[in-house]
C-alpha cells in the first residue's frame, strides 16, 4: 500500500469544484481523500508531508496530442522517455497518437501500447486508435473492439481524412460506439508541398505556403458532418483566426463539438521561423500574430476547449535539413505548462481558464475521471511555482529528441512536483 501524502500550504486551483485558496490536500490509496481550506487536517500515521508553500496545486495536466516513437522509432522517443518528459512538465496523462509503425489500428496493438505503458511509463498513457486502417483514410477500423481494448478516442494523428464519405461513415460508426473523434482538419491538395503559413513571409523565404483555407474548408465540412451524425467531435489542432469564425458559427447552431490548439500556435508565430529554423516547422504551421491573438481570444470565449503540446519527437538527422526537406514537429511535453504560463504572465488568460484547458476540459471530452481535484478522484496533481524563472536547455530535457521550439527560451513558472495516482513521479531537486 502506498504511503498517504499530505500536501500543505498549497494554493489550490481547481474549477469544478471551485477551489482558489490556500489549503491542504490529503491523498490516500492513490486518491484525494480530503481538500481543506487553510490549516491541514491531522495527518494519518506514516503520511509524507509536503510543504507546498508558494506553490500552486492544480490537477495534473492531460495532454491530448502526444506522438512517441514507440512502436517503430524508439530512438526518437519511447513511452517511457515521453512519460519522464511528461512528469517533468506536470503532465499526468498523455494521449498517444496512433500513427506509429505499425499504426495502432488493431485491438491487439492498442493492448500492446497499454501494456508497454503500464510496464514502463511514469504517467498515465491512454492510447488513441486510428480512425482508418493504416491511417490511410479509406477503411474504418473496429471502433467497438478498439474501445474494449482501451482506446480512449479515435484519430488519424498527423493525417487528415480527405474522403468526406469515409469521414461521415466513421463519425456515424463512432457515434454508435460513443467514441470521440479527434481530427486534424487539413485539405491535402490545398496544403500540398506547403512548408509554412502562406503569405508574404513564405514568399520572401521562397517556401511554399499552406493557405488558411486548407484548414477552414475541411473544418467546416467536419462540423457539418459532426452535426449530422451527432458524434463527439474534437477539431484539433486548429490554427487560424478564420477557424475560430467557423467554430463560432456552429457553436451557435448548438453543436456539441469541441476544439483544441497546440501550445506552439499560442506562444509563437511564423516570424519565429526567421532564417529557416526547422524546429519551427510545424503542422499546423505557425501562423500570423493576428491568428495567434484570435486563438487566445478563442480560448477566452470558450470556442477553443483544450491546449495540447503536440509533442512530436524528431531526431536531428531529419531536422537538420533544408527547411523544405526537414521533418515537421517539435517536442513540448516538458515545456507545456511553462509556455502556457506565458499567456498568464502576459495577462492574456486567467490562470483558472488556462488550467481548465489542460485539465478539466480534456477529461470531459474524453470521459476521464481525472482532471479535477475532488474528493474520491485519482490523485493526479501538479505542484508548480508560477513565478520561478528558468531557461530551457536542450541538454536538460528528458525527451530522447531535442527538437524543442523553446530552446534557450526564458520561462517564468516551473513544475516542482508531479503526482500520479498518489505516487510522486517527479520532484524538482532544487526545491525539495
Amino acid at each position, binding site marked *: 500500500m502506498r504511503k498517504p501524502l499530505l500536501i500543505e500550504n498549497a494554493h489550490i486551483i481547481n474549477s469544478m469544484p471551485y477551489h482558489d485558496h490556500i489549503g491542504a490536500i490529503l491523498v490516500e490509496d492513490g486518491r484525494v481523500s480530503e481538500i481543506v481550506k487553510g490549516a491541514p487536517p491531522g495527518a494519518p500515521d506514516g503520511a509524507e508531508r509536503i510543504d507546498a508553500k508558494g506553490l500552486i496545486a492544480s490537477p495534473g495536466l492531460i495532454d491530448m496530442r502526444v506522438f512517441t516513437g514507440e512502436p517503430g522509432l524508439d530512438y526518437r522517443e519511447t513511452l517511457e522517455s515521453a512519460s519522464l518528459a511528461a512528469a517533468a512538465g506536470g503532465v499526468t496523462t498523455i494521449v498517444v497518437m496512433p500513427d506509429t509503425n505499425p499504426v495502432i489500428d488493431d485491438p491487439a496493438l492498442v493492448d500492446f501500447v497499454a501494456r508497454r505503458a503500464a510496464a514502463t511509463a511514469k504517467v498515465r498513457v491512454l492510447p488513441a486508435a486510428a480512425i482508418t486502417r493504416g491511417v490511410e483514410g479509406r477503411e474504418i477500423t473496429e471502433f467497438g473492439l478498439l474501445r474494449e481494448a482501451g482506446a480512449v478516442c479515435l484519430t488519424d494523428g498527423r493525417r487528415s481524412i480527405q474522403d468526406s464519405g469515409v469521414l461521415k461513415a466513421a463519425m456515424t460508426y463512432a457515434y454508435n460506439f460513443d467514441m470521440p473523434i479527434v481530427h486534424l482538419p487539413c485539405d491535402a491538395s490545398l496544403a500540398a508541398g506547403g512548408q509554412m503559413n502562406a503569405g508574404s513571409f513564405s514568399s*520572401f523565404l521562397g517556401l511554399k505556403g499552406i493557405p488558411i483555407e486548407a484548414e477552414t474548408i475541411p473544418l467546416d465540412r467536419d462540423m457539418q458532418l459532426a452535426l449530422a451524425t451527432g458524434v463527439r467531435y474534437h477539431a484539433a489542432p486548429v490554427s487560424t483566426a478564420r477557424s475560430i469564425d467557423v467554430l463560432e458559427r456552429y457553436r451557435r447552431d448548438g453543436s456539441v463539438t469541441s476544439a483544441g490548439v497546440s501550445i506552439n500556435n499560442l506562444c509563437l508565430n511564423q516570424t519565429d521561423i526567421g532564417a529557416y529554423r526547422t524546429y519551427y516547422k510545424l503542422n499546423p504551421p505557425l501562423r500570423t500574430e493576428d491568428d495567434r491573438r484570435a486563438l487566445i481570444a478563442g480560448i477566452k470565449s470558450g470556442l477553443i476547449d483544450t491546449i495540447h503540446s503536440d509533442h512530436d519527437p524528431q531526431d536531428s538527422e531529419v531536422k537538420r535539413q533544408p527547411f523544405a526537406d526537414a521533418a515537421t514537429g517539435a517536442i513540448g511535453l516538458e515545456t507545456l505548462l511553462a509556455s502556457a504560463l506565458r499567456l498568464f504572465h502576459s495577462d492574456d488568460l486567467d490562470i483558472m481558464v488556462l488550467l481548465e484547458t489542460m485539465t478539466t476540459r480534456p477529461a470531459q471530452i474524453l470521459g476521464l475521471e481525472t482532471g479535477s481535484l475532488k474528493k474520491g478522484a485519482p490523485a493526479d496533481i501538479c505542484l508548480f511555482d508560477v513565478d520561478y524563472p528558468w531557461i530551457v536547455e536542450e541538454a536538460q530535457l528528458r525527451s530522447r529528441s531535442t527538437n524543442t521550439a523553446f530552446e534557450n527560451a526564458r520561462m517564468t513558472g516551473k513544475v516542482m512536483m508531479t503526482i500520479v495516482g498518489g505516487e510522486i513521479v517527479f520532484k524538482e531537486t532544487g526545491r525539495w
Partner: protein
Amino acid sequence: MAQRTPDASETGAGTATAFPAFAHRHMLGIAGLNPVEIDALLNRAEAMIPISRQRRTLPNLAGKTQINLFFENSTRTQASFEIAGKRLGATVMNMAMRTSSVAKGETLVDTAATLNAMQPDVIVVRHGSSGAVSLLSQKVECAVINAGDGTHEHPTQALLDALTIRRHLGRLNGMTVAICGDIANSRVARSNLVLLRTMLARTRVIAPRTLLPPGIGDMVDEVYTDMREGLEGVDVIMMLRLQHERSAGKLIASPREYFRFYGLDAEKLRYANPNALVMHPGPMNRGVEIDPAIADGPQSVITEQVEMGVAVRMAVLDALLSKTDAADA
C-alpha cells in the same frame, strides 16, 4: 543585337583599384546587402570586365581552392563560376552532387562536414531547397556563395542583371523595371526585386495570378496581370523562364495561351519605353515566354548578361577571398 558596351579599359572610368573590404563572410543573398555594398560589388565587377575580355588571369585567388557544389544541374551558372574562379587564379573543382553520395542518402550537413574537412576556401552551392545554402554555410569554415537555392535567392544573377542595366542606362535609381512570368517559382525574381528596391528602382511584376506568390504586394511596387498595362513606360523588361512542368494544366493551361497573353513579342514590346532593355536569365523557351525575334533583336541584352555573369562572379569571389583590396585592373 544591342551593341557591346565599352569596358573600363576603353573608357578610363572605374579603374580605381581600391575597393572597400566586403563585410560579409558569405554571399547568401541580396537581402542583407545595403546600397553601398551593392554599388561596390558592381564597381568591382566593372573592373573585372577588361580582365575577362582580354582573357587575362589575376593572381588574387592564387593558391585558393574553389569547390562548385551543384545539387541541381546548371551548365551555364557552373561554367560561369568556374571561369570566374580560374580568371582569378583559383583551383576550381566541380562536384555534381546528383550523381554522388547524395544518392546514397548522405545529408546536406554530412556533405558540408566532409567538404569542410578538405579545407576549401570557397564553396559555390546550388541546391533545390530554399535555405539549403544558408544551412550549409553554418556548417563550414570557408566562404559560401549561393548559386541559387530553391525558390529563394540567386544573388549573382541579380548582380549581373544590375550591372547590365547600369552599363546601359547609367543607373538603377529611378528606373522602372518589369519582371514578367513565373514569379512564384523564381529565385531570380526574388533576388532582383530585393536588389532593385534596395537601389531605389521602381519595380513591377507582370504575371497571371496563378504564377504570383501570396503576399507579392509586399515585395514589389506594382503588380500587373495584363502585359500591356504592365509594360507601359518601363525601362527594363526581365523575362523569366516558364518551367515546363508548370505549363500543362497546372498553373497555366497551355504554352500557346501563355505566349499569347504573357509572351514578349513585338506588339507587346511597343508598350515599353522605346529603348527598353530586354533581359532573360536563360535558358530561354523561345516561343513560350519570348518571341525569338525579340530575344535576338536590337533591344535584347541577353548575351551581355551572360558576359556580365563572369565579371560579377569574379567580383564576388574577389570580394570574399582576396586579401588585397585591389582587383589589379
